[in-house]
């Protein structure tokens, strides 16, 4: 019987400094067989081991359509993420997963998609955005609203051009406060949504960002006519085991790690979860 707590070994093959405190790690499994069998859906996460320091959950920020490696973007925060930031290309880490339900990709097909992201919250959405762009014909219009505190805090800058060039895809960037040389929008994400007034017909909104952004974004989306089942978010909690056993991430009788982390606003309301 397999040891469910034992990770696969993976090597860091590239590190990209996204912002002063966020790095994207590109990982390749040491075992070719694992590399071939590691299938995941956008929105799933892995437990990331830095040996000697511990394990922490991070969403997979790459798209399953782009094979050969996986990517995780990590903000320098706690014990594991700090240790991770000290690592170099060539170092070995542990990966356990993939875990969680991921985004309901099948339900999103043939719909207009509105992505709403704040800061590092773009990481799980990036997986789905790139998945959609790689299967462009399966989805209708794609609108991305991406905000950050300052322009320095915007992640995945190197991909914006590709997203803008993709067919029927719009990217709106915003920063919280006015900056010199900044030509895109200014204002917090919920405000920008109020200005942009994205159409709600045949649409789903996929939202991820800091709790405060999510809290103020939900009512705006509802006002714009999005219904609760078509507003989707992915929750963050201290998920230790990823297996629905260790008891940390429960909300109601569900475990964020096993039954989530992706939930619709309708589901969150059903178990009295306050965004």
């Amino acid at each position, binding site marked *: 019987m*397999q*040891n*469910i*707590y034992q990770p696969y070994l993976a090597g860091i093959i590239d590190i990209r400094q996204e912002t002063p405190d966020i790095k994207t790690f590109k990982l390749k499994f040491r075992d070719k067989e694992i590399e071939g069998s590691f299938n995941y859906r956008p929105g799933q996460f892995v437990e990331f081991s830095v040996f000697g320091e511990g*394990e922490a959950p991070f969403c997979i920020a790459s798209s399953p359509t782009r094979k050969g490696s996986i990517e995780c973007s990590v903000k320098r925060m706690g014990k594991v993420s700090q240790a991770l930031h000290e690592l170099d290309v060539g170092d070995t880490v542990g990966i356990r997963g993939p875990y969680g339900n991921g985004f309901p990709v099948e339900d999103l097909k043939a719909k207009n998609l509105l992505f709403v992201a704040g800061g590092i919250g773009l990481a799980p959405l990036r997986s789905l955005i790139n998945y959609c762009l790689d299967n462009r014909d399966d989805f209708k219009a794609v609108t991305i609203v991406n905000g950050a505190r300052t322009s320095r805090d915007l992640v995945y800058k190197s991909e914006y051009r590709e997203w803008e060039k993709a067919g029927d895809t719009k990217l709106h960037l915003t920063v919280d406060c006015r900056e010199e040389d900044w030509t895109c929008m200014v204002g917090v994400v919920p405000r920008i949504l109020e200005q942009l007034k994205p159409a709600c017909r045949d649409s789903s909104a996929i939202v991820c960002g800091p709790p405060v952004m999510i809290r103020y974004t939900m009512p705006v989306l509802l006002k714009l006519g999005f219904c609760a089942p078509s507003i989707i978010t992915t929750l963050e*909690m201290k998920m230790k*085991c990823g297996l629905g*056993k*260790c008891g*940390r991430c429960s909300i109601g009788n569900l475990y964020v790690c096993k039954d989530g982390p992706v939930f619709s606003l309708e589901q969150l309301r059903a178990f009295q979860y306050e965004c």
Partner: protein
Amino acid sequence: MPSEKFFVKEDLYNKLEELSKEFEIIGPRELPNKGIFYQSLKNTRDLYLGEGFAIEPIKRFFLKPSEWIFDERFRENKNILEGIPLPADKRIIISVRPCETRGLTLLDKVFDSDYKDNFYINNRKRTIIIGLACNKPAKNCFCTSMGGSPIESRGMDVLIFDMDRGLIAEILTDRGRELFASIGEGLNEGQRRLLKEDKEKKKDLVEKKLSPPEGKELDKIFESDYWEDVSRPCIGCGICTYLCPTCHCFDLVDERRKRLRCYDSCSFPDFTLEASGVNPRPTKKERYRQRVFHKFDYFKKNFGENLCVGCGRCIRHCPVKIDIADIVDKVPGLKKE
């Protein structure tokens, strides 16, 4: 169909002596000035067959307080992970209370479900359980309100009844039958009647009662101030969770190159504290409510049973006398019979 056997204590001690060549024998032992503890018995005559209750549950023989999961090593310029070989030696745990074994059947639902914990499952498979029906439940016991009873045999291979003139063993599984093949004799008519009467009597021995709320009803008072009131005395020591036969929350931690799975507790503030500083269960209110809801609401919704066997340990050993049975019984605004 269970069969029964009658023998005297001396026969049992001798049998255990014989079995100890093949099995590790674990059972309660009375330690002077300390209490009763389940231990590996070097001398099988140390086995305690009295009415007292062990301080710790048998949980730790299945779910170790700290389980060594793997080693990370560096060999020939390469990182490798080395799994820990699972112990194969067979064990007998004897004189186990019915509530404890029920606790294991509940832990099975967590660790032997979709993602299977091989450490736990291996420990379960290599262990034969011989129970002892309770002659005298303690004042904090409330097993009958949790679907158990002093004579409940679920999860056991053999259940022993301590009668005045000897012991009667109810053999429940093939493993148990094999073990007890050469000890005692079948019951005569009189003994059979005695056992029946004894069972009838023991069924109603437990005095503490509570009416557990149905899951859906507890939902309604999630936000109630009641949780703040009842958790006020709590000092967050976590003893209730460590001594609970069913509490199983754990942490995964690295110690140098070892990874360990260790007991953790929902009553500790840092249990859910995130690196960002956010804590979804910031005060005792949320933490104690989590314990009650996990036991009497969430687990019931997920697995159909309360995650509590009514052993009373958390009440007996709480330094501030928090009584979970009383708290659940007095939940406000719920229908009472």
